[in-house]
C-alpha cells in the first residue's frame, strides 16, 4: 500500500510541478485577504489599546500563523475531481484496484500543498520582516500538539470537500454548493477574525462545528492560547467530526457511483 501511495506521489508531484507559474498567481490571490484583515484589526487594536483583550501583536501573530495553517489544512478536491465526474474521465480511475479519491485525489492535494508551502515560506519570511511580530509565546510544547491538530483539520476538510464534490454525480452546479461551503468556512473557521471576537451566537455554534479545526484551533494551539483543560475535548470533537465526515463520504460515494455507472457509460 505504501508503494502505491509513493507512486501516486511521484506522478502527482510532477503534475503539480508543471503548473508552478499558476501557483504564484494562486498565492498572490490568496494572501491578500489575510493581510487585509490583519491591517484592519491591528489598526483598531492600536487605536484603543486592545480589542476584546487582544493586542495589535496578538492580531499580527494570529494572521501570520493563519497563513501557514490555512495552507496546510486547505483542500482543493472540488477542482481536482468535479470535472472528472462531469466529463466521465473518472471511469478510467475506477478501473484501478484502489479507491481513486483516497489515493490519487488525496495525494494530489498533498502534492499541491507541499508545493504551495515551498513558495509560501520565503514570502512568509518577508511578511514577518514587514510586520515584526513578537512570537515569544510560541514554544516547542505549543507547536507539537498543533501538528496532529493540523492533520485533523486537513482530514476533515478533505473528506467534507470530497463529499460535497461527489454531489457532482447528481448536479452540475456543484461549484455553487462549494461556494456556499466556503462562505460558512470563512465565518466559522476564524479566517475572518479570531472567533472570540464573533457575536456570542456565532461563537457558540462555531465551538461545535468542524470549521474551527481548519484554522482557529491549530492557530490558537501554536500561539498557546487554548486553555489546557479544553485541549483534550477539542481533539475528541475533531476526531468525531473526522469519523462523521468519513462516513458521509463513504455513503455519498457509494450512492454516487451507482448513478455514475447508470448514466456515465
Amino acid at each position: 500500500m505504501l508503494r502505491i501511495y509513493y507512486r501516486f506521489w511521484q506522478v502527482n508531484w510532477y503534475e503539480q510541478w508543471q503548473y508552478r507559474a499558476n501557483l504564484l498567481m494562486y498565492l498572490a490571490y490568496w494572501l491578500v485577504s489575510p493581510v487585509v484583515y490583519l491591517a484592519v484589526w491591528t489598526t483598531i487594536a492600536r487605536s484603543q489599546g486592545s480589542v476584546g483583550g487582544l493586542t495589535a501583536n496578538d492580531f499580527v501573530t494570529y494572521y501570520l500563523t493563519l497563513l501557514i495553517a490555512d495552507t496546510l489544512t486547505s483542500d482543493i478536491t472540488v477542482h481536482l475531481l468535479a470535472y472528472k465526474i462531469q466529463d466521465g474521465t473518472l471511469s478510467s480511475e475506477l478501473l484501478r484496484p484502489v479507491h481513486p479519491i483516497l489515493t490519487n485525489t488525496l495525494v494530489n492535494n498533498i502534492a499541491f500543498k507541499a508545493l504551495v508551502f515551498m513558495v509560501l515560506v520565503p514570502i512568509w519570511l518577508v511578511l514577518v520582516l514587514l510586520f515584526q511580530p513578537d512570537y515569544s509565546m510560541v514554544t516547542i510544547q505549543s507547536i507539537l500538539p498543533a501538528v496532529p491538530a493540523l492533520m485533523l483539520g486537513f482530514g476533515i476538510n478533505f473528506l467534507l470537500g470530497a463529499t460535497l464534490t461527489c454531489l457532482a454525480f447528481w448536479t452540475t452546479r456543484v461549484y455553487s454548493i462549494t461556494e456556499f461551503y466556503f462562505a460558512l468556512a470563512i465565518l466559522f473557521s476564524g479566517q475572518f477574525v479570531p472567533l472570540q471576537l464573533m457575536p456570542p451566537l456565532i461563537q457558540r455554534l462555531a465551538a461545535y462545528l468542524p470549521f474551527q479545526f481548519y484554522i482557529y484551533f491549530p492557530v490558537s494551539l501554536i500561539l498557546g492560547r487554548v486553555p489546557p483543560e479544553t485541549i483534550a475535548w477539542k481533539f475528541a470533537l475533531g476526531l468525531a467530526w473526522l469519523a462523521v465526515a468519513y462516513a458521509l463520504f463513504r455513503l455519498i460515494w457509494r450512492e454516487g457511483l451507482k448513478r455514475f455507472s447508470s448514466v456515465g457509460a
Partner: protein
Amino acid sequence: MHALKLIQTFLKVNLQIALAYRVDTLVNILINLMWLGVELIGLQIIFSNTDRLAGWGPGELVSLLGVFRLVNMLMASVIWPATEKFNTSVRDGTLDYTLIQPANSLFLVSFSRIIVWRVWDLALAIGLVVVGMRMSARDLASLTGEVASITSLASLAGFLVLVASGALVLYSLWVVLIALTFWFVKFDNNVTILQALLDSGRYPATVYPPWLRIIITYLVPIALATTIPMQGLRGDLSALQVFVFMGVGLASFLVALRVWKAGVRQYSGASS
C-alpha cells in the same frame, strides 16, 4: 452613433446567452447575495468592537463597500471575460478577425463579451452607497444634535467624477497589461496582479501599512477607484485635487491607447 449601436448589439447577444442558462443566472445572483451577507456580517463584527476604523464610521464603510462592489462588478462583467477571450484569441489567432473588423479594435476587445446578470450588482452597489450615506448622516445628527444634510451636491459630483476617473485608471492599466501579450505571447497571467489586489478595495487604504498603501495607490491603483472617491464624498478632498485625479485618469487613458496601438502594430497574427 456607431459605438452605441455596437454596445446595444453586444448587450443583446450576451443577454441571449444568459437567458439560455436561466437557473444558473438565478443561482449566481443568490450566491452574490450570500457574499454580500458575509461582507455585512464582517462590518457588523468590526463595528461591534470599535466605533471608528481609522477615522471611518460604519456608514462610510457601507458606502465604501458599495463603491468596491461597483468596481468589482465592472471587472467581473466586462474586464475578466474580455481578458479571457483576448488571451485565447492571441494564442489561437482569432484576434486577426477582430482586427480586420471596421471598428476600433480596443473597443471590440473590451466590450464584445459582457456577463449580463452582473448588472444586478450595479443596483445593489448604488443601494449600498445611498444606505451608507444615510447611516453616516444619522450618526452625525446624533453626535451634533442637529439634522445634517447628507452631503453637498458638490461633493456628490466630485464623487462621481472620482469614481469615473478611478475606473478609467484601472481600465488603462488593464489595457497596458493585456497589450503586453503582443510582445510576450506566453504572458497569459497578465491580469492576476490586478485580480489579486482588488480585494484590498473593501477597506479604506489608510488602514494599510505604508508598503501596501503605496502598491495600491501608485502601482496597482485600486485605491484610486475605491478609497479616493469615498474621501471625495466625505469632503476630504479639495476641488483642485478632484481635477488632478481627473487629469490622471485622462492621461493614463491616453498612454494606454498609445501602448495598445503600438502593440497591435507589433502583432504578427497566428492564424495563417
